[in-house]
Structure formats: C-alpha cells, structure tokens
C-alpha cells in the first residue's frame, strides 16, 4: 500500500486536514485519518473491520499531494517556498485513499459539500418514508447524514421503487429491501468474517436488490452482526423487531458469558427490562462482532425457573436467616464448595475467603462446560471465567465435567457440608441420594434438582443484575456493569457472599459488597492483581500475567485474536 521504501518507513505521517497539520498512523485511510483530526467524513459502505469497496460514494473529499518535478524528482515549491500541492482534479473517496506524507485533504469545501448533498439525494430517491415504523430510526446513518449533510428538502416527485418488504432471510434476521442503500457491508461480512457467503445483489441499477442465494438462508451464528453493521433499517433483528425504540434504551457495558472469549457487549434496557444485547468494539477481543447465541442470554433474567426466594428446606425465609444457617453449617464439620465458571472474579475470591474460615481443608471444584469451539468468538470452554477461579486460588487445575472426587467424598462422608454456587451438580455426576447425605447450601439463579434437595436456597443475581469482572482466555480482566436491578427481595451486588463471609468469621471478616472493595482486598492478596483496582481496569480490559498457569492444559483452540499455547496443548 505504501510506496515508501523500507529505509524511511515511518510509524506516523503528517497530513493536513483543512490546512491543519495532523499526525496520523501511516497506512490508514482518509476516513480514519480525518477522524483522528476530530472531524467526520460521512460514510456508509466503509467499515473498519471489513474490506474497502467504495460503492456508497458518501466519503468523497478533495485530496492533493505535494508535487515533484518530473524531470528532476525535486519537490515543487510555490513562490513562498512551501510545497506545491497537486490537487486531484476531481473528488476522491476517503475510504480507498491511504494517507501519504504531506497529503492535503479538504473535508469542508463547497465541492465536498455539493458531492455529499448529491450522494444523499440519490440515496434518498428510492428510500421509503418508513422512519416511523423502522427499528433503525434513532441510530440510522441515513437519518443522521441526511440531517447533517443533506439538502434538506426533496425534489423527487416520481413514484419510488417497489421492492420486497418484511422478508425473512434467516431465523433471526428480517430484510426490508426498499430501505437498503446497497452498501454491501452485510455481503462482505458474511464472506469475510462469518465465512458463510449467502448474501448477494440481484438486478441492476436502482432495481438492485439484496437477497440470499437460492436455497440458502442467513442462519449462521453470526447473522445478527449484519443487523448491527447495516447503516439503515434494511436488516433488522427479528427478536428486537418493534419491541422498543432505540432512544429509550439505557446502554450498559457488559460481557458475553457464553464462553471464555468474553465478547464485549452493550446491554440495552429500559426501566429494568432488557431489550437487546449488541456487541461493543474491542479490537483485542471481538472487534465489533459477537455470536447470535449470546444475544438472547438476557432472557435468563425473566426465566420461568428463576429463583428469587431465600428458603430453608423449601420454606421461604428471610435472607439473614438463610445466610446464618449456611454459616452455621460451614463452621461445623468438613465442608466443600462447588463453584461455577460463570461467577465473577469477585464472587470466586469471596468464596475462597469464606472457605478459609471453615474448619479443616475445604476443597473446591468447578464444573467444566466444554464444547466445540467455532474458531471465531465461541471457544471450547463455555465457562466465561475459569481463569478467574484459577487466579483467585479457588481451584488449581482445569475443571472437569464430572465431579467424581466430590461424589466419592460425599459417599464416604468426608464432606458433610456442601456449598453449591450456580451449578446443578445433579448434572455433574452427583446423585440425589448423595445430595441428601450432606447439608447442601445452594446459591443459584435458577431452580434445579440441586435446589430441590438442598437444605438452604439462596438466590443469585445474573450477570445483568450485578457489576464485576471476568478473566477471559487471554487472561484479560474485563469489567461488566449492572444493567438492571435484581429481583425483589434478593440482596444486591455481592451482599450474599459478603454477609456469608461475615457470618462465617463471626463478624471479623467484613468487606463492603462492592467490586471496588473486593478488588482492594484482591490487589493485596493476589500477585497478578497487584497495583490493580476495579476502577483502573479500562473498558477494553486489562491483561494480567499468566505465567503461573502456563503449564495448565487449557482446552481453548484458536479463535479471533487468540492463539493457544500449542506446546502446552500438545503436551
């Protein structure tokens, strides 16, 4: 791309955006470079994570480079001795023009303004007046650029084109062809990122229509990303269709709990109800994508089997009563813990603290959730936070799917009290008879067989109802924030764990039930977290040293932005 020789290769180049010098990374295009300068080049088809096609023509700018004398190769200078700028006689598209040293760009000239007005007018010629019924309204680039760069009135009096509307092109995506502005982002996404090329254009000119290839469906697990990148309302999510206007949604940064990839997400909620989950850009983890399967996880908040009541042997009771009884169990007799890889780092750490106050050795297990990784954003480890349990010292080896050790210990009576957090151990090789043998305290978000036979039930908040952090497969600590309040009656935040800790330690070990307070404790106790605090973790996550766990046989294979340590995997 760059014509510079290796000798004078630079990391940054200086360009002039509307005569203002700006230093930008070498090799980027003008859309990105002008953004560095704090200005905007409107664009539809360009997407930072897809190939450049340059078919929307919205990013037209004027561009010129310093001239060189053809005969001598010397830089051409004007009367004042400044480099003479050879302006390209026509506007160029910013997305397909890479920066070069000394390049000049005009983003606000009258020619550029005319170009944008013209392009907008052509795009709006056949665009239906669907905004009142269009789900994209409010986050629609066409709406935004029509206001910012459009002519402001319509000169079109003819009939608009008719194309298929309300078309199902896949199990999760609805297509409205009239709204399509033919940017081809979705086509490129399916081809380049999802490896499932099923979309294409048919017909010509203004009749061009986006459709699926004959007999094909847009049904891959990344199909809803096409909805996210669609600049208009042509591709819409069938699940979110007509549910809520986007301007009502409160956006909360969160993490996809499907697998150890830890896709960064945004949870859209209104008045305590979650309506959708969309990806959040993190160039080191998930770029701007996420799997479809992670977008429906919000349903666990209102699941039919959701547990919201503290109870002792099936009898509803107050939170304090249940936690006190749980602590009484823990302080008498040999205890064990079955934790979950779906708990946050803070919860896992508090479990280690609770275990430390119980008499004797308190072994802890995690239940493994292994499945085939898809090589993209679903890894083989479907627990989002196994590494958190390793780092906090809750466990010291890779978890297994069957709790055979625990089963034997329960059978022989070595374990009298069992704290089960967020897992149904009847699915992990523990029989109901074995559960009945011990004093089982079940802390979980859903009713299950374990809950049914547990002595004490304590409801747990889902990832959307609490703040905390996960450690993903890269050993990147990533924060998530609370999107909606928890169910009525359930103690907020980490209170279940901190109150249990206080009760077990006779009130001596007290920690505020906030992630920040737990992180202060963890920073002091855990080497990897030294000098870290909850507020200091950036929104894109913080890598921590992983040397301590280099020998563990993690199950993850290669995925986007992740390369497993093959030597370990082979060994």
């Amino acid at each position, binding site marked *: 791309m760059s014509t510079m020789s290796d000798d004078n290769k630079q990391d940054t180049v200086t360009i002039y955006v509307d005569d203002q010098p700006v230093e930008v990374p070498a090799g980027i295009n003008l859309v990105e470079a002008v953004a560095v300068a704090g200005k905007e080049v409107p664009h539809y088809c360009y997407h930072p994570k897809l190939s450049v096609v340059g078919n929307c023509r919205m990013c037209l700018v004027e561009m010129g480079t310093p001239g060189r004398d053809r005969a001598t190769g010397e830089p051409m200078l004007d009367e004042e001795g400044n480099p003479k700028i050879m302006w390209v006689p026509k506007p160029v598209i910013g997305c397909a023009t890479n920066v070069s040293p000394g390049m000049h760009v005009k983003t606000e000239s009258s020619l550029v303004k005319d170009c944008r007005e013209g392009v907008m007018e052509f795009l709006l010629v056949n665009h*239906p*007046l669907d*905004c*009142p*019924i269009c789900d994209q*309204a409010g986050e629609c680039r066409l709406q935004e650029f029509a206001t910012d760069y459009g002519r402001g009135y319509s000169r079109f009096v003819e*009939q*608009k*084109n*008719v194309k298929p*509307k*309300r078309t199902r092109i896949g199990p999760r995506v609805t297509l409205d062809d009239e709204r399509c502005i033919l940017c081809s982002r979705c086509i490129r996404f399916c081809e380049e990122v999802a490896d499932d090329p099923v979309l294409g254009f048919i017909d010509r000119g203004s*009749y061009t229509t986006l459709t699926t290839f004959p007999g094909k469906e847009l049904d891959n697990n990344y199909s809803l990303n096409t909805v996210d990148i669609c600049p208009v309302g042509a591709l819409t999510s069938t699940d979110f*269709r*007509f*549910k*809520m*206007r986007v*301007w*009502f949604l409160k956006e909360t940064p969160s993490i996809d709990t499907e697998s150890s990839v830890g896709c960064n997400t945004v949870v859209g909620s209104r008045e305590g109800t979650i309506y959708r989950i969309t990806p959040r850009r993190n160039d080191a983890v998930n770029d701007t994508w996420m799997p479809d399967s992670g977008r429906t996880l919000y349903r666990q908040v209102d699941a039919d089997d959701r547990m919201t009541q503290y109870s002792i042997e099936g009898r509803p009771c107050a939170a304090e009563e249940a936690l006190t009884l749980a602590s009484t169990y823990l302080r008498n007799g040999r205890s064990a813990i079955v934790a979950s890889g779906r708990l946050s780092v803070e919860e896992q750490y508090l479990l280690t603290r609770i275990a430390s106050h119980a008499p004797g050795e308190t072994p802890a297990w995690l239940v493994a959730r292994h499945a085939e990784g898809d090589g993209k954003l679903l890894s083989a480890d479907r627990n989002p936070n196994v590494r958190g349990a390793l780092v906090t010292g809750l466990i010291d080896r890779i978890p297994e799917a069957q709790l055979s050790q625990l089963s034997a210990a329960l059978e022989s009576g070595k374990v009298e009290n069992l704290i089960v957090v967020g897992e149904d151990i009847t699915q992990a090789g523990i029989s109901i008879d074995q559960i009945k043998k011990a004093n089982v305290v079940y802390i979980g978000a859903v009713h299950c067989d374990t809950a049914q036979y547990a002595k004490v039930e304590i409801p747990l908040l889902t990832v959307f109802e609490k703040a905390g952090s996960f450690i993903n497969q890269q050993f990147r600590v990533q924060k998530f924030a609370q999107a909606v309040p928890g169910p009525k009656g359930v103690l907020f935040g980490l209170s279940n764990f901190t109150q249990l800790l206080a009760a077990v330690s006779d009130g001596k070990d007290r920690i505020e039930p906030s992630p920040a307070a737990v992180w202060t404790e963890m920073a002091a106790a855990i080497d990897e977290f030294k000098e870290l605090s909850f507020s200091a973790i950036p929104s894109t996550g913080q890598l921590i040293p992983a040397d301590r766990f280099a020998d563990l046989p993690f199950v993850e294979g290669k995925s986007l932005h992740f390369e497993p340590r093959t030597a370990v995997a082979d060994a």
Partner: protein
Amino acid sequence: MATKVLERKPLSLAEQTYLPQILGGMKITLRNMFKPPVTLEYPDERPDIPEGYRGVPTLVKDPNGREKCVSCQLCEFVCPPRAIRITPGEIDAESDTAHVEKAPKEFEINMLRCIYCGFCQEVCPEEAIFLQDIFSLSGYSREELVYQKDKLYELGGTLPDQHYKWDRKREAELAGNPHH
C-alpha cells in the same frame, strides 16, 4: 408619631334618604335584565371551542377507518410529564393494513399527568394524535383516568386526511415497478 384628625363631613339630605343610591342600582339591574346573558348554563350548555384549542389528547382514525398510529413512540419520548405509555406491536401479515407493519398493541395516556401541552400532536409523524375539544374529565378512581387505546379512539373519532400516505404506498406496491 404625628396624628392627623380627618374631618368627617355630615351627610346631605339626599344621602340621608338613601334613595338616589337605590335608584342607581335599580337602573343597572334593569339595564342588564334586557341584555343577553354573558354566562352559560354549564353543564347543560357548552361553550363553543375555538380552533386550535388544546383539549384532551385523542387518537384518530383516517376516513377509511384505519388506525393511524404506528407506535413510533415519539409522543412517548417528547411528553414532558411522561403521561403516554405505548407497547408497540406488529400488524398481522393477513391484515388489510399489513403493509403498515406496525401498530400499537397498547396505548395509554394518563390524563392525571397530561398537561395539555400539545407536543404529542406536534411531533406525530403520522398525524394520529390530536388534542381536540374535550376539556372536562372526571372519574371515580385514578385507574379510570388512565385512558386506554379503545377509549382514546372512541374520543378521537375520525378526522379528514390530507395525505393517505399508506394507501398510496399500497397503490405503488400493487402497481409494481414500471419497467419490471
């Protein structure tokens, strides 16, 4: 503190009889007896409501009986006292108005909250909500004054339409593309 004693004048003979004052009063009474009344026998009589009056917000149908609201929720967004609450819904694909795709499943206006500002009417892109001439509301409970969709349509009735936007859209759909 200095005080000033005011002189109280004695009443004249005419004033002492009180007759001129009574006659003056009778004159005014008599004059008004033969003038048309300035008050209304409310509630038996109702005032004429001027054009542009901002009464109770209502939902209207177009002359073909189609409900005009498409539940875009702009009124809900703009409403300063948050009196409006809409649950959007999808129009059944078999329906006559299937091409409109979207209609409110529920639409409620809390009349106890409404401040009659008229923003909802101003913002409505479908001309579906109008503050018409109803100015007097009463009810026995708070719930009763949260007007639901059917009540709002009953109050709103049908208003003339200048655009027939969706009918024209369907005509275009039926006609198809000229060269196709």
